[in-house]
């Protein structure tokens, strides 16, 4: 009998089912549980119930959301923020968990740190009380965000009740154009299927344009799966994946690594695997992108104009567009490239890896920024490597600030906020109202595009800047 062809997702899911109820709910074993400062509710729940952490060796705590971007030599001034960082340390300590704290040499954003440390591996189930946990799917892991009650459930049982999601394959074939990056690709996907286009689905990204991406690029793509409503995003592991993992601190070593790779090579979807939905995009059609509204689904090519609600037939939809335009302070019909900005932010779990910083620095080398801005690397190792390459000098010489690793101005809870009414060109993942600060206006884009906007003080097509000044490509 021939085995039923299975997708990458189905193979990983099937390997983790501990028990199944008659109603179809499955109890899934969880291989990695990452925690950040926001986990205090969940620790409160297990403490209240008198429960212990079942698998401390699979549970890792990372300080990232509330850590300061500026000097770390002094204590955190705001007592409520300081409390968030110390509470995580105390909870991790009490339960015997490995804690990557404020002064750890590996510290960083959990979705940058875990892959970098070799904690993220193909075929694992990975959860974290953070929606951008989808990032880790870049390795062929099944990784998704959960809420506090589910975090407490995983702490206590190392399992989670789940209904098997539907599957969607997004195939992107062809070659991305110059200065068209993984960020532009995923913004194009979200614009194509909508902010809830993949709700209830796990996406597998496939095709030659995906295969050609570096691990950094794949992490950016999977990171924003949640902005299309997906439960998770996954990319089949390949030699790019395995060579990235080998030798990292927590990665398997020697014979165990070889056995792991042999297993990981069996994970990619079988040729005849069936998906509930199929979407295809042509890489050649993807342009440098940015958002105009307050949902990531409002991504358009940088060459586009601000859309006109008058052209929208549905009055409710037209009203929603007007509300977004009003919040963003934009006039229908104006070219996006005429829009002036007040600030740039380069960072976040979407775009704070070395490749991102190199791309931004390549644009800013030899230029001055026309607006203030902040560059926040994703981890201490990224920061150190960037400094070894002199990238920090490019940013500082351009007039931008060079920060310490963390979530920073993406979520704004460490105190890094976009002032009310200001317009920010941002490499982050969410342009929601108030996301970067009350009444802050966010345009999402790639690091190269944010650097171009910094250089001109306007939303800018990076392809139009003098190529000779771009430095390394």
């Amino acid at each position, binding site marked *: 009998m021939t085995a039923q062809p299975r997708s990458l997702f189905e193979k990983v899911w099937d390997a983790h089912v501990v028990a199944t109820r008659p109603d179809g709910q499955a109890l899934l074993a969880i291989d990695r549980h990452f925690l950040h400062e926001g986990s205090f509710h969940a620790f409160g729940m297990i403490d209240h119930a008198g429960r212990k952490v079942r698998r401390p060796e699979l549970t890792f705590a990372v300080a990232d959301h509330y850590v300061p971007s500026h000097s770390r030599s002094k204590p955190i001034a705001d007592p409520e923020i300081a409390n968030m960082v110390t509470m995580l340390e105390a909870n991790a300590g009490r339960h015997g968990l490995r804690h990557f704290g404020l002064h750890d040499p590996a510290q960083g954003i959990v979705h940058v740190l875990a892959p970098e440390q070799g904690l993220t591996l193909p075929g694992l189930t990975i959860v974290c009380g953070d929606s951008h946990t989808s990032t880790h799917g870049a390795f062929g892991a099944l990784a998704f965000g959960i809420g506090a009650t589910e975090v407490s459930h995983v702490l206590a049982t190392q399992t989670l009740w789940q209904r098997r999601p539907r599957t969607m394959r997004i195939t992107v074939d062809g070659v991305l154009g110059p200065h068209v990056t993984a960020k532009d690709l995923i913004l194009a996907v979200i614009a194509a299927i909508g902010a809830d286009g993949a709700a209830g689905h796990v996406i597998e990204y496939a095709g030659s344009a995906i295969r050609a991406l570096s691990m950094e690029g794949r992490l950016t793509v999977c990171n924003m799966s949640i902005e299309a409503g997906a439960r998770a995003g996954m990319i089949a592991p390949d030699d790019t994946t395995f060579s990235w993992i080998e030798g990292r601190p927590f990665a398997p070593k020697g014979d165990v690594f070889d*056995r792991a790779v042999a297993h990981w090579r069996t994970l990619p979807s079988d040729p005849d695997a069936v998906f509930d939905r199929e979407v295809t995009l042509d890489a050649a059609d993807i342009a440098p992108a940015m958002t105009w509204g307050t949902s990531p689904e409002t991504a358009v090519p940088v060459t586009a104009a601000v859309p006109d609600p008058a052209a929208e037939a549905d009055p409710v939809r037209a009203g929603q567009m007007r509300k977004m335009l009003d919040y963003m302070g934009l006039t229908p019909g104006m070219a996006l490239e005429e829009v002036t900005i007040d600030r740039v932010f380069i960072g976040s779990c979407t775009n704070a890896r070395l490749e991102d910083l190199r791309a931004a620095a390549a644009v800013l080398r030899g230029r001055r920024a026309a607006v203030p801005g902040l560059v926040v690397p994703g981890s201490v190792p990224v920061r150190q490597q960037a400094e070894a390459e002199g990238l920090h000098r490019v940013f500082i010489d351009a007039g931008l600030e060079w920060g310490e690793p963390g979530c920073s101005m993406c979520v704004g809870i460490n105190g890094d906020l976009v002032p009310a009414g200001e317009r920010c060109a941002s490499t982050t993942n969410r342009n929601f109202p108030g996301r970067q600060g009350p009444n802050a206006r966010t345009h999402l884009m790639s690091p190269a595009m944010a650097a171009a906007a910094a250089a001109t003080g306007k939303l800018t097509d990076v392809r139009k800047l003098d190529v000779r000044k771009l430095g390394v490509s």
Partner: protein
Amino acid sequence: MEPFVTLTAPAVPLDIANIDTDQLLPARFLKKPRSAGYGNFLFHDERKPGFPLDDPAYAGARILVSDRNFGCGSSREGAVYALVDGGFRCVVAPSFGDIFAANAAKNGLLTVTLPEETVALLRRQLQATPGAAVTVDLPAQSLTGPDGRALSFAIDPFKKECLVEGLDDVALTLRQQDAIDAFDRTDAQRRPWVVPAGK
């Protein structure tokens, strides 16, 4: 968890798509303990003149009727705490953020998914007759709007059982302890690399 069986209460319409959890609970309130009363933070930065939740005509609303992709974005369970502490027991929308919907069920907040046109009609009825009551019968999987028409909705049976009985699912899981132990023993042989080499 407080069980959810039936509810008859005023419903408030919100004609906004993609209401994200940052709007439901701005991030600066995430560090607050639950005892701070999350109801005070609900839609904190959206409370401008004309916002339906502040309209006296919808006072006492316990049901929210909104547009597609309600609760998208961040996994913060505090967004659910804000709704529950603000008096809401049910949200009706054409679609929900998956993580929000899971968090809601764990906190006794029912999410009802109905077709886009049905929800739009329900919002228009509520706008025409502010303060009108809606009845939700979870065991019957039925919602009755101001026009008296009963609408049936689908719900995951496990979610329904947990809501109706107010179950804590850790207790359910611990009944599977033997299966979890057996899985762990087999898996340690099959995939020895899962426990990190460590440093």
